[in-house]
């Protein structure tokens, strides 16, 4: 069984993976893959250090498989985390009777273009304190 390390990016909550180059990447395809018997301890420690440095939150191992050269998560939840909602949620893409084509949020479009791995945004996070106490615990937040 293959594994990758995933988390959410602190400033915007985007799903990220520990990349092959050591930084955090938004594409699963660029994630560092650990084989079934590989020791993930060191990488998880690194991820927890990154959480302490306030780059990411809630790092965890995610099981994946390789399918025709492409990485795929094993669970639906992780597939949705990797690929986004399975529905046409953007107003302009909704295939709904009577809906008009609607423009998307300007600000978000700018953000999408800037959806870079976290190492490229490190300048914005230079205040991150290295010895921030305690790694993030996995939360169970109340439903509405």
């Amino acid at each position, binding site marked *: 069984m293959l594994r990758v390390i995933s988390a*959410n990016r*602190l*400033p*915007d*909550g*985007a*799903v990220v993976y520990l990349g092959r180059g050591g930084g955090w990447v938004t594409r699963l395809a660029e994630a560092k893959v650990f084989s079934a018997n590989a020791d993930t301890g060191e990488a998880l420690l690194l991820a927890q250090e990154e*959480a*302490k*440095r*306030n780059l990411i*939150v*809630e790092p965890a191992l995610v099981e994946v498989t390789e399918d025709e050269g492409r990485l795929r998560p*094993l*669970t*639906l*939840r992780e597939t*949705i*985390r990797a690929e*986004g*909602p*399975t*529905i046409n*949620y*953007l*107003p*302009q893409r*909704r*295939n*709904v*009777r*009577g*809906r*008009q084509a*609607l*423009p*998307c*949020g*300007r*600000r*978000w479009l700018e*953000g999408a273009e800037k959806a870079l791995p976290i190492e490229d945004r490190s300048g914005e*996070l230079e*205040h*991150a*304190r290295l010895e*921030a*106490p*305690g*790694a*993030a*615990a996995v*939360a*169970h*937040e*109340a*439903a*509405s």
Partner: protein
Amino acid sequence: MYRYDEFDREFVAARVAQFRDQVARRLSGELNEEQFRPLRLMNGVYLQLHAYMLRVAIPYGTLSPRQMRKLASVARRYDKGYGHFTTRQNIQFNWPALADCPDILEELASVEMHAIQTSGNCIRNVTADHFAGAAADEIEDPRPYAEILRQWSSLHPEYSFLPRKFKIAVNGAAADRAAIRVHDIGYQIVRNSAGEIGFAVYVGGGLGRTPLIAHKIRDFLPKSALLAYTDAIMRVYNLEGRRDNKFKARIKILLHEKGAEAVRAKVEAEFAACQDEALTLPQEEIERIRAYFAPPALPHRPAVPPAFERRKAADPGFARFAAQNVVAHREPGYGIVTISLKPIGGIPGDASSEDMETVASLAEQFSHNEIRVSHEQNLVLPHVALDDLPEVYDRLDAQGLATANRGLVTDIVSCPGLDYCALATARSIPVAQRISERFGDSARAREIGGLNINISGCINACGHHHVGHIGILGLEKSGSEAYQITLGGDPSDNCAIGAITGPGFTAESVVDAIEAVVGAYLKLRTGPEEDFLTAYRRVGMAPFKEALYGHA
């Protein structure tokens, strides 16, 4: 509607400033996630699967056009151009950056809105009948009392760390449209034998993993005692509610374990002991708040409005909309118009910025600057002159908002489910979309008649599946989505929790299963006048089991 006074303005502004500081400290590393999580949750910010989510309260479901335009602008500027109206009269933004949340909250504060107490173990947004102040069957507008409860409970130091979250609903009409019996406290406005108006008090209802119907613990509470009595309930709960087990911490479990009579006695004793405290509501204060909700001056209109009647006779689409989405207003010649956020195949409760702006414009022009948000995830224009309905309908239609399906099989209530939610075990929205498409033919949906389908993507029941006439609960079974069906739920006066039909269904087969249930109903009903729930109550589960599983 209510306008903030200096006190409201200051405390909301102070909270925004505090949160701005907390976010800055989180981003700088001064606070870690463990320290920050309770702070962000107290301001309505969750971390979901793909992004943060901001839940903003719409107190008792009342919005002004100015507020709706602000929600549209926030969606466009800080999110992806849409918002999701929830089953508790809130709106959720699904994609805000954490760093933007203080700016969003500051913008919302400028139109007297906030996200305080939309999460956490505190008294949540107080909800009310979405037809309040307009309905023909109303005893009194519940919103002034919901507002009084909001003011009293906001940042209440004694009730900011309850054993668990706490939900209050107030209903002022004869028909319960606020689902008060599935709330921690439900207040029903009633008139006693002396002709005085007060509240019947229901306590201990709730859905989630242990669905329970509230017990009536008092037949009549004078208005002046609203806060003192709520305080007595809260004190009993705060002291005795279980803090050792999150799943047993709601007040419904306290009533279930100790008995309604024992809890009632404790509440009454606490209430009697606190009679001298300063919580008795002076009549002047009630009247001061009621004045904010004074009904708009509605010009006289003919009871048989000519333009409305002409269009109805000429345009079957309009006639269907008028019959399905417009209900009686207490003023002749007016109607309460439901704007369905359930287009066929659409995402229940979602509205784009442009949808919101269309509704805001219509409210300004045709509904005396009032909009309502229903817990059924629709919007409402509460005061529309029927002669204006043709123009309202045309403009809704141009925006794709004129789906004439209020209360029909396609008016599906659905939580966001696994497409967004970190707690979900299965997807809800795609199931809602497929059912909507299956029954999308409006003639067929009308033939089926009134039928509420509610879908939740996990046991927490945000889609209120327990009280759907047909409820669907999405679970995860051996790595796949599985859907359990319940029948016979009812959120209203004859409140009932739906019964499970039997083994669950796969994502592929669940829509066929719903069609089988509907088909069985059509076969066994005595006639079109016998709706699904009535028929279910008459015949019970057996014929539906037979239709689903081939044996009774």
